[in-house]
């Protein structure tokens, strides 16, 4: 070991180590390398080269092994009992992106849907690309309402970083001038279809405080010089983003941040590197580096750096911190507050409405827009008119479309006439689904389970979390308001959608190492540094102090870029 340590010190020392290569890790790698640091990115999953790694990118429907690319039930049950819970995402087209639950198990005291992708790029290759800013209200609500702890930053702290990451990533959308959904640096918005125009007119006429806009999505509609220079191109409206985009048209680590980082010459990516432990130097009270387990060789190895960025996903980073115990941190790394693993949040979804929209049978659309409509939050905006008997709010995502041949599944009819019918699109259907804010609850938590090991012999996580009364009340309002908006648009046969939901299904898990002002009640400070060990930054979903109701990835990007800037400056000042 002594010899090894000497060799590792010599060969494995960098300026900064980034753990994870997803949305946050890619940004950390880009920012730190561009600012001149030698950076090692450690990714627990295997390689995923941009474009050549996307082996199903151009798979046509008739090329699948199985009907609709759906995996056999037996295989789903055996390998993917949790990953299959989205109901749609895991197919033959995407199987290479999802973890096998049998190899990466976890325990659920209450159902918890932990949907994961372990490979270079992480879930930046799997995300829905919806990109919204948190609002000033989102950063202030905890303090005003006495919920959880106060964010140590405000919207103004993050606004320039939102600008910065939007400009690089490329977000298409429409400016709306709403305080609850700040505008950003947008590429041209995608179009509504005919029925969505009707929805917009109907809803906004009946409910002036509500707005129907096009989704803000990280797909390029007018690439900048910078994006073109990275090899990225305009969205081709295939809507096969999750199969991998050969045009680099949607933002991912692989298409954008890691490419930029590589071009600096300062980046090294080491796949198959499971970070198990943060090495802590008690004399200097700083992190010295990390220990990894090589997923292929099974060998341990150490890497050292002045700065450590944990970007391994909320629960991945939390696991690493929990597993990094020492005489200084007996209860987990930087966990003097006992908040590590607590306050798990997500966005609760699965409720809304669906309706038929007659009158546009002579119209259709061409192209597959990888995006839908968005209705920003309109509840509890601070005035009496929007105040409800619950806290916070929700936004809607959805849209309208005409089902094609799939409407024949489970329906009567056969023969030449039926076949002729099916060559035409079905009736217009409109759908709205809510995304609701979940409050931070200290007893919604995840803990380290040393009794149950994964296939590498490493401890696993146990989840015990659920939505509570505030969210349940909100869900009723989500259904009611979705239905009344469908009615306002003049749609017919308006039906409630009341699906089941468990935390995690939103795939926005967050909050388990929250930012805060006080080391006694939070894990991270205003710059995402671990309060108790300042050269460790955590900039993924773990950092979130509250959830807002908007999709969180853009905020992870902005927090990461801001933290990287801080880290480089602090390092220059000799503070780390």
């Amino acid at each position, binding site marked *: 070991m002594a010899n090894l340590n000497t060799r590792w010190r010599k060969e494995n020392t960098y300026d900064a180590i980034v753990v994870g290569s997803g949305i946050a890790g890619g940004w950390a790698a880009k920012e730190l390398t561009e600012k001149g640091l030698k950076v090692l990115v450690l990714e627990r999953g295997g390689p995923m080269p941009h474009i050549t790694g996307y082996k199903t990118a151009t798979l046509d429907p008739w090329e699948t092994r*199985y009907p609709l690319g759906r995996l*056999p039930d037996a295989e789903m049950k055996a390998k993917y009992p949790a990953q299959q819970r989205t109901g749609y995402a895991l197919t033959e087209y995407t199987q290479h992106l999802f973890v096998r639950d049998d190899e990466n198990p976890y325990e659920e005291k209450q159902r918890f849907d932990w949907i994961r992708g372990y490979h270079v790029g992480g879930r930046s290759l799997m995300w829905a690309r919806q990109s919204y800013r948190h609002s000033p209200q989102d950063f202030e609500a905890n303090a005003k309402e006495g919920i959880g702890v106060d964010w140590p930053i405000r919207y103004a702290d993050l606004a320039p970083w939102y600008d910065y990451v939007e400009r690089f990533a490329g977000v298409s959308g429409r400016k709306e001038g709403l305080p609850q959904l700040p505008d950003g640096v947008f590429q041209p918005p995608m179009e509504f279809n005919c029925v*969505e125009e009707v929805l917009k007119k109907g809803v906004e006429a009946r409910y002036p405080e509500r707005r129907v806009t096009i989704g803000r999505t990280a797909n390029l509609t007018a690439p900048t010089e910078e994006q073109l220079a990275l090899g990225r191109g305009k969205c081709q*409206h295939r809507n096969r983003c999750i199969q991998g985009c050969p045009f680099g048209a949607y933002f991912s680590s692989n298409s954008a941040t890691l490419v930029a980082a590589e071009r600096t010459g300062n980046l090294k990516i080491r796949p198959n590197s499971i970070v198990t432990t943060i090495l802590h130097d008690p004399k200097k009270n700083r992190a010295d580096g990390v220990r990894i387990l090589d997923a292929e060789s099974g060998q341990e190895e150490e890497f050292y750096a002045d700065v450590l960025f944990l970007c391994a996903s909320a629960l991945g980073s939390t696991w690493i911190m929990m597993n990094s115990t020492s005489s200084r941190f007996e209860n987990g790394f930087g966990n003097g507050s006992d908040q590590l693993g607590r306050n798990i949040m997500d966005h609760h979804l699965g409720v809304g409405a669906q309706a038929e929209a007659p009158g546009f049978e002579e119209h259709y659309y061409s192209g597959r827009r990888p995006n839908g409509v968005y209705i920003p939050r309109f509840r509890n905006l601070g005035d009496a008119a929007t105040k409800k008997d619950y806290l916070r709010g929700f936004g809607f995502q959805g849209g309208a479309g005409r089902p*094609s041949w799939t409407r024949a599944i489970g329906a009567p009819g056969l*023969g*030449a006439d039926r076949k002729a019918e099916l*060559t*035409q699109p079905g009736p217009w259907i409109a759908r709205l689904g809510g995304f609701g804010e979940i409050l931070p609850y200290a007893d919604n938590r995840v803990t380290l389970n040393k009794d149950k090991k994964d296939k590498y012999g490493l401890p696993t996580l146990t989840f015990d979390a659920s939505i509570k009364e505030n969210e349940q009340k909100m869900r009723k309002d989500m259904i009611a308001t979705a239905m009344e908006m469908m009615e306002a648009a003049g749609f017919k046969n308006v039906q409630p959608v009341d699906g089941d939901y468990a935390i995690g299904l939103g795939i926005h898990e967050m909050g388990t190492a929250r930012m805060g002002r006080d080391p006694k009640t939070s894990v991270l400070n205003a710059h995402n540094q671990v309060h108790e060990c300042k050269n460790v930054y955590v900039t993924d979903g773990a950092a979130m102090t509250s959830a807002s109701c908007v999709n969180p990835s853009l905020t992870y990007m902005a927090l990461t870029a801001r933290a990287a800037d801080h880290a480089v400056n602090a390092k220059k000042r000799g503070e780390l």
Partner: protein
Amino acid sequence: MLMNRRDALFGLSLTIAAGSGGYAWAQPALGWTPTALTAAQAQILDVVAELVYPKTDTPGAREAGVPQMVDKALKGWCDPMQAGFIKSGLDKLDTDAKAAHGAGFVALTAAQQGAMLIRYDQEATAARPQPHPFGALKDLMTIGYFTSKPGATVTLRYDPVPGDFKGCVPMKEIGRAWAT
């Protein structure tokens, strides 16, 4: 040619209701080797598939390879109970054909075959949400047909790389439903 004519007759028979006269033709060799089905079941499937999605101005199920896709799904995709359920449905078609007409399903006239399938389809509709062997088989054939290359690209429209998105286009400019 014979196939075309029979298909045309069948299309007509659905429109004017079953019962008009028809002729039975000898079945051609399958041209593929079933892996999950017996030869007899495969022959029945071959006829059923073409009756459900017949050749019209666009390709039929046979040309689209639907029977092979169903056989393959029964072998490696459906769980064994579901596969057995669907296979038993094919057997029952033959049993019912013999009971009603004194001949196996493939030997019946197109009109007789069509009438039997219409009755099965009605049964399947009435049974919902309970499963029905014909309903389950038809769903597999539907998926097989419209995700086949002829089904997706000839019967429907398929555009792997659309380029642009246009939200509101007169239907007549597009003509057919998009396959995806």
